[in-house]
Every structure is written in C-alpha cells, then in structure tokens.
C-alpha cells in the first residue's frame, strides 16, 4: 500500500513519513480513530498538528485514513492535494477488492451477452498495491481460445484504474463433454431422433 501512497505523493518534497492504518502501531491507530471521531462531529476530513520542527497531516476517507509528517516549510496546498489523491486511490483500491468478489459472475455474464460458449472454471486473484495478479481458468470451444482470452483480458483492463496493472494470467482450456451439452439437451435430442 505504501507504494500506492508514495505514487500519490511523488510530487511533494519534504515528506518524512507516511502512515496508513495497516502499517501504523496500534497505539497510533487508536489515537487516529479517536481524532477521527472528533473530526466527524465537526464535519471535517483533515487533521493538522503543528509542532516546532514539523507538521502532521491526516486525511480521513470512509473507514480509512492516511497521514504524513513533513518538514515545517512544506507547502500545505501540495500536501492536501496529495492526501486527496491518496484517499481517492485507496477508495478505488477498496472498490476493486469488492469488485473482484463478483468478477466470475461478471465475466460469465459478459460471455452470455456476447453469445460466447465459454465458462469460468476457476479463479484465484489478489489485489496488490499496484497490480491485480493471479489466474483465471476459462473453458471455451475449440478455435475460440485466443478470442476468449483477449475478451477477458480487455474486460479486466476496463475494470481497473490506471494505477492498478492487469497482471492476471488467463488460461483457456477446452470444454469438457459436459460443458458442451447438458443432460436435458441430450434427452431432447434422443426424443427427437426417436420420432424421425
């Protein structure tokens, strides 16, 4: 996660430390949570603590927060802009994590809409700081493997914000007999042939 935040802060000079809930100590996290409650009652998103030597800024967003310590003379405008951007990144990141849970259904719906005889056999994905990794196994009709793989890759690309790269390996496998025809369809064929 730190890489993601660093990306948002790369324009700002004088950043000494970046804090996020996952990496902060429990004591620090508890303090931040308490401050968040105070801020919420004031309908504010930012927190600024100033000392003699440095400043501490925190930006709250949904259930998370991100904070930075800087030198005393770093531009507040830049810090706030970078914190805003970070909050957006983290929100997007959270959304992607949620979306991944429904991805199998979404891909199968895509196949259905495009009239492609294919199915997702297995999916094992994880969202990293700046990439989506893992494997999706898709079964498809012979001769359609490449087209189906391209379709899934493009679909994934569209789902991801620009700062999360698609590193998913899409494996296409041939459909098994049971994926080519259902028992019900087979029984219907047999009944029809019997009547010929």
């Amino acid at each position, binding site marked *: 996660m730190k890489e993601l935040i660093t990306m948002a802060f790369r324009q700002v000079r004088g950043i000494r430390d970046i804090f996020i809930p996952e990496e902060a100590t429990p004591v620090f996290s508890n303090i931040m949570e308490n401050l968040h409650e105070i801020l919420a009652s004031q309908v504010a998103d930012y927190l600024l603590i100033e000392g003699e030597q440095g400043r501490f800024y925190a930006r709250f967003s949904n259930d998370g927060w991100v904070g930075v310590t800087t030198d005393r003379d770093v531009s507040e405008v830049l810090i706030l802009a970078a914190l805003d951007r970070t909050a957006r990144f983290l929100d997007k990141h959270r959304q992607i994590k949620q979306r991944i849970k429904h991805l199998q259904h979404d891909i199968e719906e895509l196949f259905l809409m495009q009239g492609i005889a294919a199915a997702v056999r297995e999916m094992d994905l994880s969202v990293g700081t700046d990439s989506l990794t893992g494997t999706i196994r898709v079964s498809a*009709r*012979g*001769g359609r493997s490449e087209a189906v793989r391209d379709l899934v890759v493009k679909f994934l690309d569209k789902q991801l914000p620009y700062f999360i790269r698609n590193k998913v390996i899409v494996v296409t496998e041939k*459909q098994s*007999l*049971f994926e*080519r*025809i259902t*028992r019900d*369809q*087979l*029984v*219907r*064929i*047999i009944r*029809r*042939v*019997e009547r*010929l």
Partner: protein
Amino acid sequence: MMKAKILVTGAFNAGKTTFIHSISEIRPVYTDKKMLDTEELTTVAMDFGRITIDDDLALYLFGTPGQERFDFMWEILKEDIIGFILLLDSVTPEIPTTQKILDFLISHSDVPFVIACTKRDHVHALPMETLREQMKMDDVPVIPCVATQRDSVKEVLLILLREILNRFS
C-alpha cells in the same frame, strides 16, 4: 441456438455421405468431386447435415473426407464434438486406415463413439463377428448398418446418443 455436433467418419467409400444424407432434414452440403481415375465421387472437404430439435437446439452431423490426403480436415472437424460414429465398410473393410482414424480421434478427444459396419445388405458383407474381431474393440458398440436406410442410420445414431447419455449417470 445451441449446436450439438457429431462426427461421422471412416475410411474411403465407407458410406459417410450416404449416412448423413439418410438422416439429415436438410439437403446435405456435399463437397464431393469426381476422381480423375475412376469418375467415382469422393468427399474432399466435409459433409454436413442437420436435425432441428427445437427453437434453441440442433444436432449437426459432420462427415470427414475419406481420402487420407484430406486428413488435415479431421483436426478441424473433431473440435467440440459430443461423440463420433466410425463407419466400417463390411465388404472391403479398410482396417489399417480405420484404425488410424480411430487412434487419432481417441488420442485427441475423450467423447463416446460407436462403430457402424455399413453395407450389411451387400451379399459379400463379412460377418459382424469378423469385423468386431478385426477392430479389437470389446467395450465399444459395433453395430450393423445400411447407410441407405433411414431406420438403420437412426438406430446407430440413437445408440451413440445413449452412450453419451450414459456418461452423465
């Protein structure tokens, strides 16, 4: 529409085109050409027949070319089949060629299949037992067939379809 595909295959002159013609509800698409030496017709690409089941389901029958020099078509036609029917000429069974086709399909596909011995109405048709022994297939249905007769073709097709159904149980 869901299209279930069955392959009808066999050596040269085993009766694949006739087989499909007997059962297809549409006039089969022939790709037969006269051979230069004998003026006989032979399939050079594939035969194609259809049986419509209902609005969203159809059974397609694809016939492979018999001559070995067109065997590159097997690769294409075997894709996505739910089963295949291997025709064996009862009068002049081309066992090595038939075996070669069978080996190819078994190694590239795991679908059920049956062997139909054609030309059973011919006076010189070899006994079924002889053909069964020559094919050395104990656990596969070997069925007598007259490809010109619809009922006989229908019977072969039904046996294959029931073999496929057995896989589901």
